[in-house]
């Protein structure tokens, strides 16, 4: 596969390490009253869609960026590649 890195352009997927569901960005609030249950869901529950999937890839043999790649798990078509840091900020993550 080829991943179109937002900063570096097209790169072979062999330069990357795969992590999984981009929902991992949405780490729950540790101070919430439901924190234990929220973290249980965060750590263990994942969707496994046959189709479009947002997932985390790390450009390990490259610039060390974490990327959010929107990929179709049936066809391997990639429709969008974003810097994970930008996605995290969009989701309200800060310091």
């Amino acid at each position: 596969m080829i991943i179109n890195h937002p900063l570096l352009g097209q790169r072979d997927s062999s330069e990357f390490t795969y992590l999984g569901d981009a929902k991992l960005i949405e780490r729950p609030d540790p101070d919430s009253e439901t924190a234990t249950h929220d973290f249980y869901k965060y750590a263990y529950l994942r969707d496994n869609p046959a189709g479009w999937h947002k997932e985390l890839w790390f450009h390990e043999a490259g610039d060390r960026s974490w990327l959010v790649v929107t990929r179709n798990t049936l066809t391997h078509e990639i429709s969008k590649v974003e810097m994970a840091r930008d996605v995290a900020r969009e989701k309200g993550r800060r310091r």
Partner: protein
Amino acid sequence: MIQKNRLEGGQIDTATLLKFKFDGKSYVGHEGDTLASALLANGVRLMGRSFKYHRPRGVLSAGSEEPNALVQLRSGARQEPNTRATTAELFDGLVAKSQNRFGSLRFDAMAINDRFSNFLTAGFYYKTFMWPKTFWEKVYEPIIRKAAGLGSLSLLDDPDVYDKGFLYCNLLIIGAGPAGLMAALTAGRSGANVILADEDFTFGGRLNSETFSIGDDSSAVWAAEAVAELSSFPNVRLMVRTTIIGAFDHGIYGAVERVSDHVAIPDAGKPRQIMWRIYTQRTVLAAGAIERPIAFENNDRPGIMLGSAIRTYANRFAVAVDKSVAIFTNNDDGHRTAADLHAKGLKIAAVVDVRANAPLSMDFEVLQGQVINTKGRLGLTFVDVKLSDGTIRTLDIGALGMSGGWNPNVHMTCHQRGRPRWNESLAAFVPGDTLPNGMIVAGAANGDMSTAGALHGGAQAARVVLGLKGSMPKLPTAEDAPIRLTPFWYVEGCSRAWLDQQNDVTVKDVKLSHQEGFRSVEHLKRYTTLGMSTDQGKTSNMGGLAIMAELAGKTIPEVGTTIFRPPYTPTAIGALAGRNRGQDFHPKRLTPSHKWALEQGAVFVEVGNWMRAQWFQKDGETHWRESVDREVLATRSSVGVCDVTTLGKVDVQGMDAANFLNKIYCNGFAKLAVGKTRYGLMLREDGIALDDGTAGRLANDHFIVTTTTANALPVYRHMEFVRQCLFPDMDVQLISTTEAWAQYAIAGPNSRNLLEKIIDQDVSNGAFPFMSCANITICNGLRARLFRISFSGELAFEIAVPTAYGDALIRKIMEAGAEFDVTPYGTEALGVMRIEKGHATGNELNGTTSALNLGMERMVSEAKDSIGSILSRRKGMNRADALFQMGVKPLDLSDDVPAGSHLMNADGPVDAAHDQGYVTSACYSPNLGHAIGLAFIKNGSNRIGEKMRLVSPLTGVDVAVEIVSPHFIDPQGERLRA
């Protein structure tokens, strides 16, 4: 030596004589021959034995689709099994052997299987070897294994080099027949960056096998001229002997270039093969078509071949398979073969056509009928033809061509889950609507079977994929015959009509499979083995599908095809491995002290990709334990030095550096003073320990984090994840500096005395107490880092210098330490000392253990949030009987306590249900004089002094042990604070 079946003409160089051997007998052939064509020229039709029944078999085809003529090529270390004689290029000195025979090729003892064919039908193995059950492993399987299989391996290392390479182009053209050449000419003239690849050693495809003309030239001459023009384009790369093996995601194609397969030994510096990864935006698939046989009684005798193959051998290789030939056909192409052979002066006994409306000829007899049987034990002698009026004619011939129509080569169109589409007029599958991205199909592969159609299709395809403007180039006039075909798959009423000759699958087997309830085409394949092995059913699948459809009362497209998967043809493991084999399987990383360690007699061990000194063998030491015990005792009594460069080092800088460390470590770092180091435990978000190490604070906004050697990469990845994905606005930067610093541990009571001789600062206990760190200089000005940390439990320091000075520093340490008998120690002594001290490593942080298990539950700070802190407080991870890291020692001090053994209550049953824990690390302690171990034990902290059984039923371990503190040496830590 006379080649009795050699004709005039052809594309061979008769001036060059090439000597070769087949089954020990010498023959000659010419440059331009394949092994198959040269054998046929010498009158050799019998080339192998079939897989199951050991039936005598000859060559069926003239290409890579060959199911039968598989030989063992070359000898010695270069021996290569299952090589298709039809694609093996002849070279001087070639040696080949036939396969799958017990005895000689002519008298094969296993041919007895053929007599029992009624029993050896589809599913025979599944049905027969079911009982008695115990017989499978000891009796049946070894016998079957010996009898099955085709060629054999030499079991010697392959002496040749295989390479990998990367290529980029605007347009990849697969196949260099009329469509591929025309596409390449069109694209090449436009200036596009083109790769044209063909598996054959000569470009031209079928153009080299035909007698018709293109424009004013013969088809072969036209092809040669096209290649000459293409060679003049700097933007076109021509790749002969190159098979595209697969169409992978996003325009990536795998290609195997057989650089040296056509010579006895690769030229100096040349690889045997190259596995190319071709990145392309567009692809024209011009892979042509493959002729299919017809199933009839005993249609597998040597001499019975595809009609087009007989034509290829005559026209391209100037070989008559036999002087007297017949053709069995259901379409006009069979007549073309007959006409070509007649023109070559061969006798056409008859063209047997199943059609009522078959064209007639002035040159040979055309019979309406079917071939119903053949004779000839080791090669065809007679065929029986049943004419349409019911009479039987016997033809006395040595070669029979089968022409059942052509299958477009859709293989590569299906590599991205595409499904081919049925074409009624061809009675064949053609490429479907869903092709790999950027691919377009042209020529016979697309169902355009005439030469004119292929030339037009190739030019058009190149224009479309490249978006070329302007009018279509003027194409030369060429053969443009229509397809006239009546689908015909098999002759009725046969008991042994072969569909798949490689796997010995008959029409009857397919019927049996249907009768036994196998309805899916994929099940048919697995049950009968139709379409398996090296040819993957290139000539046999369609026949099987047609019969299955007929039995099920369905159409062929309703039955569908099995899935085509890469590789297109068998690919050598060597080509896939490239240079990554043996010592070079993965990169080897050497520490800065490697050369020095070699000089000291170090024995090395792989740790990840690193080579680390395991121990340093001195003269006279005969057992590794002698060396390790000496290193441990010398370190604990005076001073030892160990290369710890391989530990991961991450430089963390920024205003939020301390906040960041507070997140990744479960214990607190915000209050760590500048100039101090702290042990840190990292958890995964699920509360399990991820890694441990130390972090030293060199400045308010600057930390050095160390990781274990094995986890250097995953931990760095995790830290970047936390930084970028969880806390994107933290002011913190990370960089791995593992390779930038050479680092040595200097441990033992004399370590300070040694250090004082080489460093420029005061490192007295007052000035540089336990857990200090600092930027320092050594040897009058060289920058260095010093950490007062201890893994061994002794007074110890770790000193780091820029990598380039690593070799100089170890030599300096050895020189300065000579007066203290400084002793280099390796990873084994390191391991012994940390077990003696009760320090955890990867054996304990094994992906299942929590801070509590490790005895560090109080480190998980409740005052702050950190990765894993929430879930580490879960009830299930804090049970009263949770595993706890403890020490074990044998009651009988001469016993071992092997790691991996399990602990059981002294008086309880020994079974998994009563498991009390297990030993993670064990060694012989030279300081204590007996074996010791670290173990996870249920409720372990409350069981000190308890006697237990340590068992490993599998390996026969059963030792009485006592639970003790994991701190075997200096439990109060007085030495390291000295």
